[in-house]
Structure formats: structure tokens, C-alpha cells
């Protein structure tokens, strides 16, 4: 089993496997988007309190979950880079940062647009929104730091330290709605409890989450392939790849 995992550290193996995987992932992603959007926009009934505006949940909640998930991937790849010096981890971290920043931006903007008709304000300085904004600045700082180094190996390791320091923000974002009760509503889905949301609304939400996740994996894999080609362009297999 370790041999199987070890192979992922080899750029050539990773490149070829990810090419095959990406086709399937794109297919799953498109299917989940279509199913989720149809279920969420057409099939699911209007909410009792919020009417039809609650449908923003289908793009707001997956975006915010993914913003946290991608940051954890970033921090974990950074830790792998620091401890085991595996190049693929460098590439995964570098490729995940822009898409993670986009997800955070989407979570903030869709949340603001949702907030205006529902709670009368685009923005409020409560714990969850402020720490999500901090997350956006962490992503942007990470991207800025990575792009100011000439040597990409050192850039990856320096970025890893920044990402690991910022991990403290993730539990703050996640538990902020439980610790402080301010504007943002409480958690609807938890691992250990039955969800407080009806199944006809839950299923499209989970489908949209799967769609966002596969979208992230597809884009990140493409970014990793780009980095692999750039860094390995002296090897024979890349030369053969460039020829056709």
C-alpha cells in the first residue's frame, strides 16, 4: 500500500494519472452541477420564512465549506513540504491558492447579497464574517508571498510556514457561530446530529457541494500539471510530451 502512495510523489506518474482522472472528474462535476442546480432552483420548495431568496444557500454554503477545505489542503501540503520535501506537495499548494481565494470571495459576496434582503444589511462585523475576511487576506498574502520569490522551492516552504500559522483561523471560523450568537445563523449540518434542514433542500445542497469539490479538484489538478511540466521540462518524458 505504501508503494501505491509513494508513486504519487513521482511527477511523471502523477501527471499521467491525473490526466486520466481529470476526464472522469470533469464529467462528475458537470453532472453534479446540473443535478444540484435543477434540484435547488426548480424542485426544492420555497422556504417558509425566507421565500425564494434562500436558494442562495446552494452557492453560498458550498463556497464557504470549500474555502475552509482548500485552506486545509494548502496547510497540509505545506506541512508535507516542510517535513518530507515532496515536490508534488509544493505544486498542490501553489495551485490551490487562487481557487481557494475565489471560493472565499464568493462566500463573502453571496453571503452579503443574501444578507441584504433577509437581514437588511450587506455586512456586519460579527465573528464569522470577519474571520472569513481574514481568511481571504491570508489567501491573498499567501499568493503574494509565493510570487515574490525567485526560487520556487524556497517560495513553497516560506508559504508553508505562513499557511500553517494561519490555520488557527479555521477553527475560529468554524465554531464562531457556536461560540458567539450574532447575526450569522447557526450550523445546519453537523456530523453527529440529524440535520435541521428538510431532505428536499438537503440533497441539492450536497450535490452542489460535490460539484464544487470536483470543480476544485479538476482546476487544482490542471494547475499541478502545469507546475510539473514547468519544473520537469529537462526530463525525457516531458520532452516527448512537448513534441506532440
Amino acid at each position: 500500500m505504501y508503494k501505491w502512495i509513494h508513486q504519487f510523489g513521482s511527477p511523471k506518474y502523477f501527471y499521467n494519472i491525473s490526466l486520466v482522472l481529470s476526464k472522469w472528474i470533469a464529467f462528475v462535476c458537470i453532472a453534479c452541477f446540473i443535478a444540484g442546480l435543477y434540484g435547488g432552483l426548480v424542485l426544492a420548495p420555497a422556504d417558509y420564512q425566507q421565500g425564494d431568496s434562500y436558494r442562495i444557500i446552494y452557492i453560498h454554503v458550498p463556497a464557504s465549506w470549500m474555502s475552509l477545505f482548500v485552506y486545509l489542503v494548502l496547510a497540509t501540503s505545506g506541512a508535507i513540504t516542510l517535513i518530507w520535501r515532496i515536490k508534488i506537495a509544493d505544486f498542490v499548494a501553489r495551485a490551490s491558492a487562487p481557487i481557494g481565494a475565489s471560493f472565499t470571495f464568493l462566500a463573502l459576496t453571496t453571503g452579503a447579497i443574501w444578507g441584504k434582503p433577509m437581514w437588511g444589511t450587506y455586512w456586519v462585523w460579527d465573528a464569522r464574517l470577519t474571520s472569513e475576511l481574514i481568511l481571504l487576506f491570508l489567501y491573498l498574502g499567501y499568493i503574494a508571498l509565493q510570487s515574490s520569490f525567485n526560487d520556487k522551492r524556497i517560495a513553497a516552504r516560506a508559504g508553508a510556514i505562513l499557511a500553517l500559522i494561519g490555520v488557527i483561523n479555521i477553527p475560529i471560523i468554524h465554531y464562531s457561530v457556536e461560540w458567539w450568537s450574532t447575526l450569522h445563523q447557526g450550523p445546519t449540518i453537523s456530523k453527529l446530529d440529524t440535520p435541521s434542514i428538510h431532505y428536499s433542500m438537503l440533497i441539492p445542497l450536497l450535490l452542489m457541494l460535490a460539484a464544487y469539490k470536483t470543480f476544485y479538484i479538476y482546476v487544482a489538478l490542471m494547475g499541478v500539471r502545469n507546475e510539473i511540466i514547468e519544473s520537469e521540462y529537462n526530463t525525457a518524458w516531458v520532452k516527448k510530451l512537448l513534441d506532440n
Partner: protein
Amino acid sequence: MMLNDFFYMGGYGIYVWSAYAITAIVLIFNLILIKKKEKKILYNLRKLKKIKDNNEA
């Protein structure tokens, strides 16, 4: 009638659809950016390879 309801979204149409539009724009933008970067990298590396091969030949 149903299509109208779909766009009107019980009065919140502009909010819901602007949110979905921003999401679509940002996600598609990310996709396009990565694909463009891939094309650029392949183009540059191929050019570099051609120069190197010509120098060695």
C-alpha cells in the same frame, strides 16, 4: 407563468440571480485562466525546446 415565477423568485429575483451570476463568472474565470496558463506554458516550453534543438543541431 412558471418561467416568470422562476425569474421573479418571489420578489428576490435580483438578489438570487446576481449571486448566481457572480458565482458563474468567478468559477468560469478560474477555469479559463488555468487553461490559458497551460497553453502559454506549453507554447513557451516548445519554443525553448526548438531553440535548444536548433542550437545543438
